[in-house]
């Protein structure tokens, strides 16, 4: 079917296009203007037309997210979906905002099968997972022995078997150290019994990803998340990357100094400066927004520490070989000094990191806020007067601990399109996404500008997935099912018998026990879409 979107303002920075014009879709792809009449025509004059949005870090599936659902039934269906929404709502609400690909960033290989089943239950959008390594005994043994080739093979096999689009590490070594009763763990602390620092684990995994040609750089959840003064950890981590590609997850949670009467301040300006000076570093923000949410993290050491602030007062922690996880409900309050500083620090990062290709739009859903807060956050980035109105309602002593009140930058449409479309596609290695040039996948979001920008972003005027209109102003036009994007990196098969011996001796299991075959996810269609590695 040939579809024409006529007369919209096409904002497509990857192709240096920002002009009123036509967009043609056929067979799921964007095509060059043909000399034929369209089968279907949509007049989108007066609207902004962009590629479908891409979220690189949002906890939408897996056992930890599902535990949050079981732990907090009282939050389901609440205003703004304060907890972890069910799969159907995730797909529908993301699609309504014009997002067409969302990456679940924290799946331990041992529970990848459940994560993919959950992804398959999320309608409309495409999905992916990042596979988590860096705290499990087998990987730590390889790193300790300096077996870097075997480590790369192990990473590749894990990505292939768990259906991952990239490699993540979460407080590398921190969970293994906590398992041995260590309560504080920083970049140069050693995991007992292994004699390995977090730095060494991070570097080994970072290099394994590079060696394998994994398009997405190692996705790092660094040490000391959420602690006052942890900006030093973040700055040291940027240095530790030694000029090689590294993605820092939810950087806002590491942007804290210890200044001021309450020994808690925003250090976002310093951190943004360091990111600006380090072209190999990318970061997503993990913005905090006010309201009830639930924190879902595989940083079990951090979540153990956060239990005392749980609201409502309950939590679920899981210890495993590897990362485990922790679910701690939390309410960010405007009146709360610390929460207000966190909110300001996130916005400072957005506004002070100069290059929209290197800063990514996230709330670390649901850790900083549910993704349903995105429309408000986008509006804040585009409107300094709106920010001033919010700032006026927050504790002045908190705003004094941040440079935010002085920042006047407003995101332009082109920068929004880079940050939420073009840059994530490039970061994940997806040549056919994030832009609207011929050959691009026909995932398209159409927004009708109105005074209330948040309302505009909450329900896009029209959303196309794979060339078909799926939602109009938040209402479903037709059902659609996306796929899960995955890598299939090559590796030396010699790692297989070695893993088989290890799994048998350690767990009494076949090493294939956690593999995710396509037929375990969907027997009627291929649930996966292959993404090539760079080599």
């Amino acid at each position: 079917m040939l579809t024409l979107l006529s007369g919209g303002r096409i904002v497509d920075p990857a192709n240096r296009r920002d002009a009123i014009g036509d967009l043609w879709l056929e067979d799921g792809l964007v095509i060059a203007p043909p000399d034929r009449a369209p089968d279907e025509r949509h007049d989108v004059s007066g609207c902004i037309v962009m590629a479908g949005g891409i979220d690189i870090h949002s906890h939408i599936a897996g056992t930890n997210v599902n535990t949050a659902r079981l732990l907090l039934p009282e939050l389901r269906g609440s205003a703004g979906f304060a907890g972890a929404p069910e799969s159907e709502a995730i797909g529908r609400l993301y699609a309504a905002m014009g997002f067409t690909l969302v990456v679940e960033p924290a799946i331990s290989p041992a529970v990848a099968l459940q994560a993919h089943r959950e992804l398959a239950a999320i309608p409309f959008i495409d999905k992916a997972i990042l596979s988590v390594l860096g705290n499990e005994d087998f990987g730590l043994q390889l790193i300790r022995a300096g077996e870097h080739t075997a480590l790369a093979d192990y990473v590749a096999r894990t990505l292939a078997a768990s259906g991952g689009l990239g490699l993540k590490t979460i407080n590398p070594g921190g969970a293994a150290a906590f398992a041995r009763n260590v309560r504080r763990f920083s970049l140069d602390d050693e995991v007992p019994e292994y004699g390995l620092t977090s730095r060494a684990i991070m570097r080994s995994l970072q290099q394994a990803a590079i060696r394998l040609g994994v398009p997405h750089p190692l996705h790092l959840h660094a040490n000391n998340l959420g602690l006052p003064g942890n900006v030093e950890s973040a700055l040291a981590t940027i240095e530790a990357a030694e000029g090689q590609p590294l993605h820092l997850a939810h950087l806002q949670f590491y942007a804290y100094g210890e200044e001021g009467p309450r020994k808690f301040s925003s250090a976002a300006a310093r951190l943004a400066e360091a990111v600006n000076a380090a072209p190999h570093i990318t970061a997503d923000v993990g913005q905090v927004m006010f309201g009830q949410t639930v924190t879902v993290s595989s940083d079990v050491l951090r979540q153990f520490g956060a239990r005392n602030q749980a609201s409502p007062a309950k939590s679920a922690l899981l210890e495993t070989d590897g990362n485990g996880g922790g679910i701690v409900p939390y309410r960010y309050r405007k009146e709360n000094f610390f929460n207000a500083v966190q909110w300001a620090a996130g916005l400072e990062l957005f506004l002070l990191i100069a290059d929209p290709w290197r800063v990514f739009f996230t709330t670390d859903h649901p850790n900083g806020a549910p993704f349903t807060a995105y429309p408000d956050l986008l509006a804040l980035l585009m409107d300094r007067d709106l920010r001033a109105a919010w700032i006026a309602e927050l504790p002045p002593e908190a705003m004094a601990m941040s440079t935010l009140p002085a920042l006047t930058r407003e995101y332009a449409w082109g920068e929004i399109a880079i940050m939420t479309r073009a840059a994530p596609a490039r970061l994940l290695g997806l040549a056919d996404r994030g832009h609207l040039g011929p050959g691009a996948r026909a995932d398209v979001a159409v927004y009708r500008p109105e005074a209330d920008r948040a309302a505009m972003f909450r329900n896009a005027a029209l959303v196309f997935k794979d060339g078909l209109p799926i939602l109009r102003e938040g209402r479903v036009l037709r059902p659609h099912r996306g796929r899960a994007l995955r890598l299939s990196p090559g590796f030396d098969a010699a790692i297989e018998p070695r893993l088989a011996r290890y799994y048998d001796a350690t767990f009494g299991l076949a090493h294939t026990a956690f593999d995710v075959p396509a037929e375990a996810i969907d027997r009627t269609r291929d649930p996966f879409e292959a993404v090539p590695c760079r080599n």
Partner: protein
Amino acid sequence: MTAEALLAGQPASRAAAIAAAAALLGASANPLIAGLATDIDGAEAAIGLARAVGGVLDHTAAAGGLRDLDVMRQAGWITTTPLLVRARADCILLVGDGVGDFPTTPPTLAPAQARRVLRLPGGAALPHSLALLRALLAGRKLAASAALHEIAEALRTAQCGVVIWSAAHTDGLCIEMVCGMIDDLNRATRCFGLPLPGPGNLAGVMQAIGWQCGFPLRVGFARGHAEHDPWRFDAARMAAAGEADVALWIGAALPDWAAKMSMIALLPAGTPAEGAEVTIFIGRPGVDHDAVLHEPATGALGFRRGQGDALSAAAVLTAITQALGVPC
């Protein structure tokens, strides 16, 4: 030749049985979908059917699972998986009934450590024993048996302590005391709970209902959207109170309340099905057909290849939903 389905006890075609099931459910004011001893495909298809008919979902072993869940969602807990127990636990406390023996072989990732396995017997004295144990661990000087002192000392000095219980055999108060004790221990050392999963893929079904509905088990769709209420949507209670008129049952045998209403039974081939108006014989998930199930050995969902391609609960439930002609 054995029948593929029965109508009022007489052999019938599968198609006729599916049509009859759809007719019963479509005409029902308050249908139950219960038993639910099925794989993940079956659970997801059951949710789809419950949505379509405004029905209630309950699992035959839900009571135990909800006892665990109640403790988690009232106060929270710290748990682990069977894999970590095998690999690292150096002290294991077996609490109450329904918990089998655990080998004293050393933890595989710490072979130099001895593994202690201790037991706190079930029965009427268990709540008192747990209260004493928790008080001993809190440092109170109390008159307690040598066995309790030994357990307290073992947990206090363990590097990786694990407490195992079965909610099917343990009351909520005891589970709460166990979880509170584990929480206390983690102030100074590491200790984790291992709740044993219920039968009939309870843990797997609970997970699927979680991601599909946003709630744990005992869910009803009578108002068009999912509602969660462990008391109101208890199938046995609803049957006793006469609140349901039709039940679709998936399990090994019919429940003892089957005579209270019209039954549609999805049973393993060869199971007696007396009293069911409609019976459809299905394969055993992971045995007679491929299935995704919660694996007690790993504590995670896993894929089991079956020996054949027998009819699955999911296929039957999907066919019934389609026969209803309700858009879903």
